[in-house]
């Protein structure tokens, strides 16, 4: 087989696999290595272009960044491997995801945002999706006022071919409502996605996790359980849905389904151990810390858990003291929060911890609701 054929073959195999399968990313990497070794820039570009996609939607965004930087540089050298549109489309992902790595300092991020805006403007594109992407991390980076400012810019900018799909834009609205509105509004906004009238590559995966808390607040536990089961099945093989996984664990914790919450923790711990840190790690660690706190309140005996051999507290006998685990997760959460806070120059992530632990009250309410006979349906 010629090298060119081999590269095509690897890429073909990779395209057959699902988002989140590490083999998919590995196959594209092999294709890139071969293309680089044989100095076939055109195929090296094509393979990296696919890797950006697979890594962004497969939970290894850092790999997408390296590939994107290379593609962008090639494109700047006047090479015609791809349309500019394609790179700008992916630049949105960079703007949205890069701030989720605490090691990338603020000045570097801001310069990148400026670069993205300049490129969008030079192309004649609306800045709408960039404003939205920046707004996503704006509160943690620059504070609440900047977030509001960016959202207003986003809403007033026109939609064009680089805009996110209407399903994604609705999902953002659900996210906003989740933070600032009453739970009924969240559900009302989410309805077109929950009912399947609007779908896309990342929906309803995301929204099914996003509405859990609101459904619990409304006391609609059957609906919540349906969203949990449906959503979990959609995300359980893709580490890109780490934030969503954290929400599912929190949902189970709140509704007292601690054994299932522990099961999810056990199964998906690998998504945060030995991987590059990003903001979603923080939310997963926080959800597990909160879960262990709830478990510790009633359980004094140690837990039997099958955890990864590379987990720092790993024990051959599979026996873990709740307090030990909790202490580890607390420390990891706080350390990571500290790194983000230092980078951002504020205490946003500490506030996130406090807000999460305020959920104890809700857990108590659910317990009371469960112990009372249903008021009729």
């Amino acid at each position, binding site marked *: 087989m010629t090298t060119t054929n081999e590269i095509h073959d690897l890429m073909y195999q990779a*395209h*057959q*696999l*699902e*988002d989140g*399968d*590490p*083999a998919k990313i*590995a196959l594209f*990497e*092999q294709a*890139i*290595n*071969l293309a*680089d*070794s044989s100095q076939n820039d055109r195929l090296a570009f094509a393979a990296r272009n696919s890797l950006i996609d697979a890594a962004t939607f497969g939970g290894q965004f*850092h*790999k997408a*960044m*390296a*590939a*994107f*930087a*290379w593609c*962008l*540089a*090639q494109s*700047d*050298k006047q090479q015609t491997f791809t349309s500019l549109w394609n790179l700008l489309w992916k630049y949105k992902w960079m703007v949205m995801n*890069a701030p989720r*790595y605490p*090691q*990338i*300092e603020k000045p*570097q*991020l801001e*310069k*990148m945002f400026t*670069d993205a805006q300049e490129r969008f403007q030079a192309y004649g594109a609306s800045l709408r999706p960039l404003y939205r992407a920046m707004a996503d991390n704006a509160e943690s980076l620059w504070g609440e006022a900047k977030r509001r400012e960016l959202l207003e810019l986003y809403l007033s900018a026109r939609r064009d071919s680089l805009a996110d799909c209407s399903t994604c834009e609705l999902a953002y609205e659900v996210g906003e409502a989740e933070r600032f509105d009453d739970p*009924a509004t969240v*559900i*009302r906004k989410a*309805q077109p996605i*929950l*009912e*399947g*009238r609007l779908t896309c590559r990342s929906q309803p995966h995301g929204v099914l996790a996003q509405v859990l808390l609101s459904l619990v607040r*409304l006391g*609609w536990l*059957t*609906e919540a*359980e*349906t969203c*949990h*089961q*449906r959503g979990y*099945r959609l995300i359980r093989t893709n580490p890109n849905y780490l934030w969503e996984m954290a929400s599912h664990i929190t949902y189970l914790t709140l509704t007292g389904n601690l054994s299932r919450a522990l099961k999810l923790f056990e199964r998906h711990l690998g998504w945060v151990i*030995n991987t590059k840190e990003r903001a979603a790690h923080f939310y997963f660690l926080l959800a597990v810390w909160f879960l262990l706190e709830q478990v510790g309140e009633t359980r004094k005996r140690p837990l039997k858990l099958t955890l990864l051999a590379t987990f720092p507290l790993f024990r051959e006998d599979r026996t873990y003291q709740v307090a030990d685990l909790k202490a580890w997760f607390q420390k990891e959460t706080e350390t990571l929060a500290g790194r983000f806070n230092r980078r951002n120059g504020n205490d946003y992530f500490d506030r996130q911890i406090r807000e999460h632990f305020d959920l104890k009250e809700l857990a108590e309410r659910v317990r009371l609701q469960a112990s009372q006979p249903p008021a009729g349906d």
Partner: protein
Amino acid sequence: MDYKFQVNLQGIIDLLSNHLYSGPQVYVRELLQNGVDAIRARLEPEPKLAGAIHLSLTTAEETGAPVLVFEDNGIGLTEAEIHQFLATIGQTSKRDELNRQRSEFIGQFGIGLLSCFLVSDEIVVHTRSAKAADSPTMEWQGRPDGTYSVRQSEEVLPPGTRVRLVCKPGFETYFKPAKIRELVNFFGGLLPYPIFLSQGTKRVQLNPGGAPWTHTYFNDAERREAYLAYGKENFEIDFFDCFELKSEVGKVEGIAFVLPFSPSPSQRGAHRVYLKHMLLSETVDNLLPDWAFFVKCVVNANELRPTASRESFYEDETLELTREALGQTLRGYLVKMARENPKRLQKFIQLHHLSIKALAVYDDEFYRLVIDWLPFETSLGEMTFGDYRQRNAVIRYTPNIDQFRQIAQVAAAQSLCVINAAYTYNMQLLERYAEVFGDKPVGMIDTEMLVQSFAELTIDQQEQADGFRTFAEEVLGPFHCGVEIKIFQPAELPTLFSTDQDYGFQRSVSTAKDVADAVWGAVLDDLTSDTEDAFNAQLCFNYGNTLVRKICTIEDRTVLKLAIQMLYVQALLLGHHPLSSREMTLLNSGLLNLIEIGVDSGKGWVV
């Protein structure tokens, strides 16, 4: 004074159809659904009624446009019901706001008969209620401007409903007999009531016999043949095999067709699901376990609750139990094949090993049954797991492709055969082996562990190699590559290059940095800032190799440096790692220098 909005019905219908439905063809579904609901409603007081649906196709004499008349002998409508059912969109109840939202969240929203405006500018309905013997026959006429009229018809009809549609210009396709037959079959092919289509004096039944699994067959072979023919007719696929599906819970029945190819992710889970014999959806995603992507199913469910999206069922205990029961049936099929028809199983595995692996990962009994048949890539080529475990006392695997390549170079000489577990499900399967069988240890092996197991140098040898080691560390340090010296087999191999899991990423970053602009260069610098001093790779020199021993004695630092650099570059190339621009320079200038040294040494060349 309050006023009401004036709503353009046609506009609303177009809007709703575009958002709710896949296209104008849904008018057939809505007509069928209305007809079936009406027949079911009449069967309650009159259980002996022979429900039937008649379609007849003619041409309108004045315009030449095709006309479709759709008639059922169901319960019919009274005048009051006409106003309620035929002329209301998006009915709301008087319940409080929150409960209303909840019911919408659960409920389903359809436009029923009004969907006929998609293909017809005029809907005429004749209907007579079966509730009272003296019910009059009513005529309802609806127009797309939102107006309608109701009057008592001069014609007296038997109880039931008759809908007359005149084809709108441009929608002739939806009135072609073949299209109507296709749509009726698609939406209602399983209905237990006969559906007839007449044209002139010709009359055919569109759904002879209903669901194929309700027929009686002479023997299993005949049944299989009939099912496969049904599959071919409905999906235009020659399926590999088929079998029946059944669950008491949820009242589910149907056929699973085994695909003759491995489906891509987007094709997975596209099962055709009927609810009470009417098509619910072709994309129901949660009726079957998700490892069942080797089959395409046609099933009818009588007791499951769909969500408004029509793409899944409500997650309740009934669904959970149904899914489990159907999963058992699928599993039973595989188990039976493994026991009775190993040849077919082998063929099946070639097509669907991903599916099989996915199931084996969490089903111990199934794991025991199939694991030996599953193919794995090993350092001695592809072999089934059965062959592998027969020949090896310990099951060893590598976690990624780089590790696999590195170890494969020395594995045979170390009497080691390793499995490449980089691919989907492989690692999970191997890790479960000890749990399921427990007769052999299973372990991951990486190059670092392997290097640790190699023989150390004797004290004398260490003394001789010590200067070399320090110098090599100096030379390779800038490349983030550590140095080790050991003795290992095969002796012909001068070095073994090993990398950690971050290595590929670190290299891709430095490749990108070679070309990136200032903005992105700085971003990438930060991204790898926390790991920048780490050694991601190690070059282990084989002191058992003659060349390496010779190199250790070179005193000329320039030549020694060159030798080390060239061995490093060679290791990279063997490991399929593309060279960075700096390494490429090493290779180019290194080769030239070596030639120069060769020529200068005056010893001539041995070819």
